């Protein structure tokens, strides 16, 4: 029986294992240094906030693995020997494999800031980081002020976490407006306002120079490039993540920033595959980045590699880009491509609508000349994934999208609906006379 070994028990590795089991009877071994069982990384924040206990963020009950004959090993892989097809594992015997899947995820970026290894300075990625956070910032008595460096998704989540325990937070963001490399100006401004609403001390266009430690090596302050010194007991380093592949440096497996893979998720070494955050495509797919640290891409790569390993070699072909996040109390969804800042192409026209008082807004991107619909960002409105996926596949134009916007609404029942307001603003800006059509179940569930 073939031995499939998977390094990493995140969503990519676990999806691969589950689908290999669905398709075959091969022996499956998953090695993880982080935890005994799979958990949802994106939900770690809710454990600190007290919304859930750690057991709640484990999607499968503990009996699931044995029942499905998926062997779990706790240990740290120190070496991959592909000539002998063998792994050295700290705290365990060597493990033989026939096929190896590398799914080791990411680690927080550290950019060599002076003092970055002081006690009380940390990133937020792993279960260990969460445990460390409980020690570094359990409450507002121990942690009188926290400074967060890096204005991305993890940064704002960490800010929300700390605020849930009433810890004062100073949030240093390099950009002139929150996440404006990704979000168009109107949206970025909305989130700036929302951050302040939550009593987070937001410092835009501000970089950290260094972390100052006390005589015990504990964080006591940071200095900024604005010449300011901010006293604090905790520094959150959340300036992005990068692939966790250091242990492969001398293995002969080709490494760039991540493990280099082709469209089939195969590395340069036969029978070795890489999936999830740690995989780096030789050539980016469409507008996607070569490394995508996103939950669902990890899952899809796992599903794809399972097919390949079980004898049906297929390419990894992610469909239309989509994503979502929640900034404090504001939900964000995106379908297709809406670019901001330097990424925005000349032909990309934006239509933006924002509610007069609520934190709700929509940005639609379309081609200036052909009117082709390119993508949509929504804040405070939920949209139906199937609909936008179909519209992107069918290359609908922006007028069609506006006319049928009600079909795409996924907000709970009784919510106020804004399609008329949105479309009437669109009409007045573009000189069109579109009337939004009533929601139609027939259109929503059409199966052509």
């Amino acid at each position: 029986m073939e031995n499939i070994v998977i390094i990493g028990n995140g969503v990519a590795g676990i999806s691969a294992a589950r689908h290999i089991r669905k398709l075959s009877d091969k022996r499956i071994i998953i090695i993880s240094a982080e935890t005994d069982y799979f958990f949802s990384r994106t939900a770690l924040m809710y454990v600190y906030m007290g919304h859930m206990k750690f057991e709640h963020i484990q999607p499968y009950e503990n009996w699931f693995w044995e029942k499905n004959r998926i062997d779990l090993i706790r240990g740290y892989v120190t070496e991959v020997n592909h000539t002998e097809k063998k792994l050295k594992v700290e705290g365990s015997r060597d493990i033989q494999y026939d096929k190896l899947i590398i799914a080791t995820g990411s680690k927080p970026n550290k950019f060599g800031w002076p003092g970055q290894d002081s006690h009380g300075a940390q990133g937020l990625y792993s279960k260990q980081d969460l445990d460390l956070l409980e020690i570094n910032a359990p409450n507002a008595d121990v942690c009188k002020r926290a400074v967060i460096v890096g204005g991305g998704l993890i940064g704002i989540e960490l800010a929300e976490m700390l605020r849930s325990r009433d810890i004062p937070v100073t949030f240093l963001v390099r950009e002139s407006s929150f996440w404006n490399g990704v979000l168009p100006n109107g949206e970025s401004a909305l989130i700036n306002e929302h951050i302040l609403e939550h009593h987070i001390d937001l410092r835009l266009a501000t970089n950290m120079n260094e972390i100052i430690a006390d005589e015990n090596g504990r964080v006591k302050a940071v200095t900024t490039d604005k010449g300011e010194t901010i006293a604090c007991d905790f520094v959150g380093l959340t300036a992005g993540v990068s692939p966790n592949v250091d242990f492969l440096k001398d293995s002969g497996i080709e490494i760039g920033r991540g493990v280099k893979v082709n469209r089939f998720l195969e590395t340069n070494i036969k029978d070795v595959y890489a999936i999830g955050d740690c995989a780096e495509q030789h050539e980016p797919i469409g507008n996607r980045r070569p490394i995508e640290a996103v939950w669902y891409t990890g899952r899809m790569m796992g599903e794809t590699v399972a097919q390949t390993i079980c004898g049906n070699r297929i390419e990894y072909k992610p469909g239309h880009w989509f994503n979502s996040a929640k900034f404090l109390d504001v939900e964000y969804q995106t379908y297709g491509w809406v670019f901001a800042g330097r990424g925005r192409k000349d032909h990309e026209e934006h239509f933006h609508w924002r509610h007069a008082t609520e934190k709700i807004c929509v940005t639609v991107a379309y081609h200036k000349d052909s009117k082709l619909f390119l993508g949509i960002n929504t804040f405070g409105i939920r949209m139906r994934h199937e609909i936008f996926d179909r519209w992107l596949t069918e290359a609908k134009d922006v007028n069609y999208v506006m006319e049928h916007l009600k079909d795409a609404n996924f907000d709970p029942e009784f919510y106020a609906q804004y399609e008329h307001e949105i479309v009437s603003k669109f009409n007045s800006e573009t000189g069109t006379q579109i009337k939004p059509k009533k929601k139609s179940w027939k259109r929503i569930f059409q199966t052509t």
Partner: protein
Amino acid sequence: MSTYDRSMALTGQPPKKLNKGQKISALIGTVGLGIMLLAAFNVEFPNRALWLFIALSSIMGGTIWYAKASYGHKVKGIKNDGVWFKSLSNKGLMGWLAGIALTGFYIILYFYPAYLGLVKDGPNNGVIALFDPFSRLLSGNPASQWFVYGTLYTVAVLAFGIKFMWKYRHNRYELVRTGSVMFFQTAFAFLIPEFMARLNSDTFSLPYYNFTKMWPLDNYHFEGYRVKSLVTAGDVGLGLLIFGIASIFIISPILTFKYGKRWYCSWVCGCGGLAETIGDPFRQLSDKTVKAWNIERWVVHSVVVFVTLMTTAVIYSYLGNDTSKYWLTKTTFLLGVGGLLTAVFAWVMIFKRKQLQKDAQYGAIGYFVIIIALIGFHFLSGDGHIFLFKSGTLRKTYGFLIGSIFSGVIGTGFYPIFGNRVWCRFGCPMAAILGFQQKLFSKFRISTNGGQCISCGNCSTYCEMGIDVRAYAQKGENIVRSSCVGCGICSAVCPRGVLKLENGPLEGRIDSNQVLLGNDVDLMTLVNKK
């Protein structure tokens, strides 16, 4: 700082100090409860109406003020910070104390009402006497323990309903739904039945009639004395009797088809109303394991079989044998019940077999138990007897085990231990019947939004019915579960906008994708092949 004395607790120590508003409002609410407690210990209040008014308004005012102090100053949104750190909502000491206190209250209420001050053939004393003026105002009669309970119940639904609305003020579905349960509890379950009692005179008498409770949740619905009293009460009584029968056989199937069983369980029902309001802080305590789900299905469906048999037996016992006196006799009644059940069973087996899968065998077992029992009634029972028991024994056993112990003592008393829907999930025969319809014959589902799920688990954690919502959502499957009461909280707590309660076309309601949207279409078809 390095000498800071850290607690040994593994989970966090969030700031759960109460603010000034919370402290004062908690004090006011406690004063209200204190007045009632004093009354229960026979402290005489000079002006009962005034003191009752003070007590009820401080409970109500205290709760509402507490809600404002807790949520008013915060940005609207999900308010679950620290839920698992608090003793009350995490089965800590406070939770257990609350559970014990509630359980004790129910035991006294059901079995020892004399301790509350109920006096047979004489004026009440104790806390029941405190409620006498209010009861006289509404119905003209002195209070009973049930009037005290009904009043407190309604006050709880109203006060904690407002708290719930404050907590979920960003969510219109929750606001409308909570408004609905508050209205039905106050008007149809509490006030109207009291007013109806005013209609009674020496020549005209209606039994106590709670419009929001239908058979089989109201297991007394078709008892001899009630039916007799309805039949003798002229058109109004007959109307009520027909309404009672239509509720279960016509009205509820239609509404459940259109909206799912939520129209009842989380919009109208009083038990649901209490669970959704004062029970809301405990919703996360429901057990989500597959084991609990198995137990749930056996227990709740056994209750359905039990209540069906019990009701049949009770009606059977007061019907006659002579067709010339009344068209409905013992024999025709048994044949009717058997025929109806056979029709339902045959319909399900022929048309809905696929949806039921392995549950079909459980259904078959339940069906045959009932049919055999019906045959047994016919051949082995005499006047007033079902088999060897008196029909009254069966009724009393059900009333004691299910009506009192399960729905009251365990169902509500154990809110802080097992979660707020224990009764609805494990015990309520009404919920089981509506759930059966919801699963097989309804437009309602919780739609999963393509590939957006991140398996975080908020939906499953906060599902009061113990449904592992995430297990479906992360596979891109819609959630069509008979136990879902449609409270909408899974959708509310979802950070990625994945879940939506909706009533849509029947086609494609259950079987959706195994692999989620976002991946290349070929792979989706490949993996979706089972």
